[in-house]
């Protein structure tokens, strides 16, 4: 399978979603599509089914709180890969408080399961339609979102409140 031309993908996507708000940019060898979040699921589905991006490499998020010239609070990044042609594509969408919800990509790629749980755990971004959206790395009773920029590097003293089991109780 030949590598699909980027302009073709962009044209097709704009037709498919009926909007011009999808933008394409490149940096070094990375190709990025910036998509409004309403169209995110539509775009991901289209890329998977029409252009064969069958592997979801990574989902991650960035908190742009102190970033110079940032217009949005959060960015969520999907790294896609076409395992046949080897083409890579990064799909990015922006989110602002208070509406931190995105459609889950679990129905397209099962790999999204844990990756979305980690983004939820670290940034508090909710993925609607995810089968089991629980915290994955932090403890269940943890209330903050540690990778947000307004969370201090040394924590908020949660470790002092850890339940301690004494030798007599164990």
């Amino acid at each position, binding site marked *: 399978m030949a590598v699909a031309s980027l302009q073709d993908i962009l044209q097709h996507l704009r037709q498919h979603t009926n909007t011009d708000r999808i933008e394409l940019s490149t940096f070094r060898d990375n190709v990025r599509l910036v998509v409004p979040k309403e169209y995110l699921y539509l775009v991901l589905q289209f890329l998977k089914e029409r252009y064969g991006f069958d592997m979801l*490499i990574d989902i991650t998020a960035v*908190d742009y709180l102190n970033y*110079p010239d940032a217009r949005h609070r959060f960015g969520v*990044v999907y*790294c896609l890969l076409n395992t046949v042609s080897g083409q890579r594509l990064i799909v990015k969408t922006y989110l602002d408080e208070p509406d931190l919800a995105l459609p889950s990509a679990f129905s397209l790629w099962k790999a999204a399961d844990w990756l979305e749980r*980690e983004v939820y755990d670290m940034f508090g971004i909710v993925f609607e339609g995810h089968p089991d959206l629980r915290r*994955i790395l*932090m403890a269940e009773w943890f209330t903050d979102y540690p990778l947000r920029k307004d969370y201090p590097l040394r924590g908020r003293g949660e470790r002092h409140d850890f339940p301690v089991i004494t030798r007599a109780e164990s």
Partner: protein
Amino acid sequence: MPLELVETWDEQIDTKQYLWTLNFGPQHPATHTTLRLILTLDGEKVVKAVPDIGYLHSGFEKLGEDLNYNQYVTIVDRMNYISPVANEIAWHHVVEKLLGIEITPRCKFIRTILAELARISDHCLNIGTAALDLGAFTPFLYAFYQRELIYDIIQEASGQRFHPSYTRVGGLMFDVRDEWIRKVREFVRSFPKAHSDIHRLLTRNRIFVERTKGIGILPRELAINLGCTGPVARASGVVRDLRKDEPYLAYGELRDSFQVVCGQGGDCYARYLVRMEEMLESLKIIRAAIENLPSGPVNVDVESKAVLPAKPATWRTIEGLIQHFELIMTNRGFETPQEEIYGAIESPNGELGYYIVADGTDRPYRCRTRPPSFVHFAVFPYLAVGHQVSDMVAILGSLNIIAAELDR
């Protein structure tokens, strides 16, 4: 024993009146590191497996936002501590991609050799411990002796055995000596014998084969859908290796010296075989690279404002002193573009990627790791169902989960 009656949720298994819950880990000798599985059992058969992770979460990504591009290499080392050099190479590969630095040919070759040694050491540990969990003790000792030799080589290069922190932006901490080259050649000569010893002990060993063949089958479509990479995906027939598909370092030049190893079964035995063969391919790469090791500087030109100048230049020339000062002072350092980049290399476990957001300063604004262990452990519930409790150990061993990388 913590046994508890669980309600059945499926009509079909209604006739089986009770299912048991078994807590596997977090401190179980076969998990090797700290991870936990909650298994729902029907007799000895696993009906459902729910992994519970996070015991080793140490906030590495948060720490990365507070350290500069050179300092973070010490943290990256401690993610996959089975092959730390591979992590360092991945990290600085992506940083150099971000800064647009093209490293010198000598550095490329040295890094390639180190990356392949890391792959051999990782596969040795994986095969050794997987066999150990299935009751074969001797291959474990053979494999660990080879790992010891690799540690010696890494120590010769960097001065540190386990967490060398050897790479720097635009080069290496320092160049290797002739003694290092001699040791690598010696290893290339001696390794095939140890490899064939392990081969003869395991590959046709009836116990080992029966415990791994047909266990934990991962079909090709599922492997792609779940995002598997590396030996796990290649054992399921996904022909993909970043060393061939997106050549980095010296792999482009050494393209003809190695082949991509793929399997078809997708079971634990196929994953074992793929790892065994990959070690020999790695050895071919090392052999080709060490005999063609270019001369010349190991760091990029000082003009690039990324590497520290050599010590004599710092002490005796004003330009060297200024350059040194510029990089060391806390309010100076690198100039980075305000950009974001994703880059990846083929680590022993699979695709190890970093997503770096740079904000112009010498510290990453965000440095996401794409850990292969994390993605591969998500596969575990799909592989575990239908097998017995004792097979969990075989499946865990074949996926090569490193908890420090899993939880970061």
